[in-house]
């Protein structure tokens, strides 16, 4: 067995193990952390496929940002497992139905009739000076530039929508304008006046 | 308008931050004022109230006559005195304890003493390793007086003209 194959099996094992642990873990925080581990394993598998840009992006976006916010939310929530368990049987039929559909779809797509070595050729190994990211950029900005820009605009719309949902100006809230505070000079707040005291002359 | 423009320029060139950093940079090369304690000491006033000591007369006779004025005046009740008659018929202390955990170093005992027996020295860097070390017994107090006789006499002399 080659070194790369050993690595493949190690990472695959961790991917499956951590995914299962994520599903079966009772502690939500543990679930999130197992999901992070499975992301890492998937990224390592992609690295073995020479898809280093995708692997790094997976870590940067999902591990570095999305899962951080997940954990952020989990920390704030007060999850009571007893209520979740009470609802479990109610959701069970729907859950089983969805699971069967997913398994059927996956087996159709990833079955040996569709996804075997016979159908998809073994990826070509490139030399170490082959720049994956340049090839990807060339494809994205020439062949698929239209779709790429559309996706970007879609994300932008999502961002603006999220901000407008949150950003309501409530007249009851009191806010401080930091720019105004910082720009204040002493002369804006304090007025120095010279007062002539009438008794001064008498005392002399 | 012009002022606002000036303000923007000032903000974006980080003017005030750089000024602040120039101050610390100047202090970096300035003369340091640290006193390296065990080797160097700052001057101490002759009226400094440090750890206590019992004094003796030049002929070796202990000064304390067990009048218990210090015990009475002590605001923290730190002093405990027992007295008895010595063989020669004079009244002397058999026990003279100062609890340093109680003592607030006010110096009233020193002021009250009619024979200048109990004094407070300039020693402030003392330490003890056991709990009962916090109680200064008569023996220990006399020892401190013996060991620092010169310094005590010197400071009392210096201070005497203002009393």
């Amino acid at each position, binding site marked *: 067995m080659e*070194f790369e194959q050993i690595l493949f099996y190690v990472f695959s094992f961790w991917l499956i193990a951590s995914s299962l642990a994520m599903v079966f873990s009772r502690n939500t*925080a543990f679930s999130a*952390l197992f999901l*992070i581990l499975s992301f890492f394993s998937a990224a390592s598998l992609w690295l073995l496929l020479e898809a*280093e*840009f995708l692997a*790094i*992006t997976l*870590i*940067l976006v999902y*591990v*570095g*940002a999305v899962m*951080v*916010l997940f*954990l*952020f939310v989990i*920390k*704030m929530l007060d999850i009571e497992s007893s209520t979740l368990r009470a609802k479990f049987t109610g959701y069970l039929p729907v859950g089983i139905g969805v699971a069967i559909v997913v398994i059927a779809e996956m087996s159709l797509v990833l079955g040996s009739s569709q996804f075997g070595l016979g159908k998809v050729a073994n990826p070509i190994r490139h030399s170490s000076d082959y*720049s*994956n*990211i340049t090839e990807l950029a060339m494809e994205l900005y020439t062949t698929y530039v239209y779709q790429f820009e559309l996706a970007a605009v879609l994300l932008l719309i999502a961002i603006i929508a999220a901000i407008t949902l949150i950003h309501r100006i409530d007249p009851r809230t009191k806010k401080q304008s*930091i720019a105004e505070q910082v720009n204040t000079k002493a002369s804006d707040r304090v007025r120095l006046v010279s007062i002539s005291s009438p008794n001064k002359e008498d005392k002399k | 308008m012009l002022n606002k423009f000036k303000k923007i320029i000032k903000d974006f060139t*980080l003017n005030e*931050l750089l000024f*602040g*950093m120039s*101050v*610390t*940079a100047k*202090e*970096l090369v*300035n*003369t*340091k*004022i*640290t006193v*390296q304690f065990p080797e160097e000491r700052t001057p101490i006033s002759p009226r400094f109230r440090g750890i206590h000591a019992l004094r003796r007369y030049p002929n070796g006779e202990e000064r304390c006559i067990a009048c218990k004025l210090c015990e009475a005046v002590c605001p923290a009740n730190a002093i405990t005195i027992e007295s008895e008659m010595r063989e020669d018929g004079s009244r002397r202390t058999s026990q003279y304890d100062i609890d340093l955990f109680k003592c607030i170093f006010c110096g009233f005992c020193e002021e009250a003493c009619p024979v200048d027996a109990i004094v407070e020295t300039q020693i402030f860097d003392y330490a003890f390793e056991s709990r009962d070390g916090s109680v200064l017994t008569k023996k220990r107090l006399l020892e401190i007086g013996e060991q620092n006789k010169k310094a005590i006499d010197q400071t009392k002399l210096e201070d005497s003209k203002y009393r």
Partner: protein
Amino acid sequence: MMALWQSFVELVYELIPWLDGGVATVLIILIKGVALILPLIIMMAYMTYAERKVIGYMQLRIGPNRVGPIGLLQPFADVFKMLFKEIIFPSKANIYLFLLAPILAFVPAVAIWAVIPLGEGFYITNLDISLLYVLAIGSVGVYGIIIAGWASNSKYPLLGALRSTALLVSYEIVIGFVAVTVVMVASSVNLNEIVAGQKGGAWNWYFIPLFPMMIVFWISALTETNRAPFDVVEGESEIVGGTHVEYSGMCFALFFMAEYINMIMMAALAVLMFFGGWHSPFEGIPYLDDLFAFVPDIMWLLAKMSFFLFLYLWIRATFPRFRYDQIMRLCWKVFLPLTILWIFVVAILTQLGVGPWF
């Protein structure tokens, strides 16, 4: 230096002839790792010493001077103190995550150094996307803080972790945009090639066309490494030490080391991206170039890094801590628009082909 290394590698291959050199490859990777981590840890140890000394001097004190001549052995005294201290577990803490947190903080901090080049052809790996790798692994470091805050089961660590989470995620975006401008100028994501683009004298360095980005990057770097004046994660005066409250002994030391190794990494990154990496500032000047020809390239890198490390301490000694909401405002309302604006400026400058940079 590289020739010496090459002969050493061949020696290792000859000593271990079995398994087609497979074991030797692993062994060489291990040796490389140790050769990187040991100087890094010593550098980190002396960074703490320098910090205490420099901040002391700026406050008219003299800093540590008891252990060894002028206190030079102080870091070792600190290490031994940390090693022999008891690790205390809070009674209701989640023990696995509690122990995992310092490891998760420390490992990414060291792992980043795998791709940081220290000289011409002097690196552990020459990854094609090394700048992205640095950003990605750097963003993993935040988990140490989050998990520490959550697993301690204590209020101050949780507050510190909550503060840091939002902060680090926000500033990663800014650092990402700054990196984009650098990548646009250098037209490569490889740190080696970014440095190669700055060859030939100080006027070729990228800090000239990207000057505002350099300042934005440095301020963001202060935030990313939780340094004063942005150290709201620790915030000694408000939340007594943030995520570190419940940690003691070696567990705390790991957090501490991670912070300092990240500081050194950020300084190295600033030099590589904006200040010509290991290139001498006098390259191309007739007389000075020859005069400084004897200086090895890694020395230039270390000299430039030292300035930035000093800047960390200088800034810490000068400024009071930012209020949390003002840091967020600075990120989203000042830095982010500025970086996006500068991306357009760089795009225009690239099209015009201005100066020696584009």
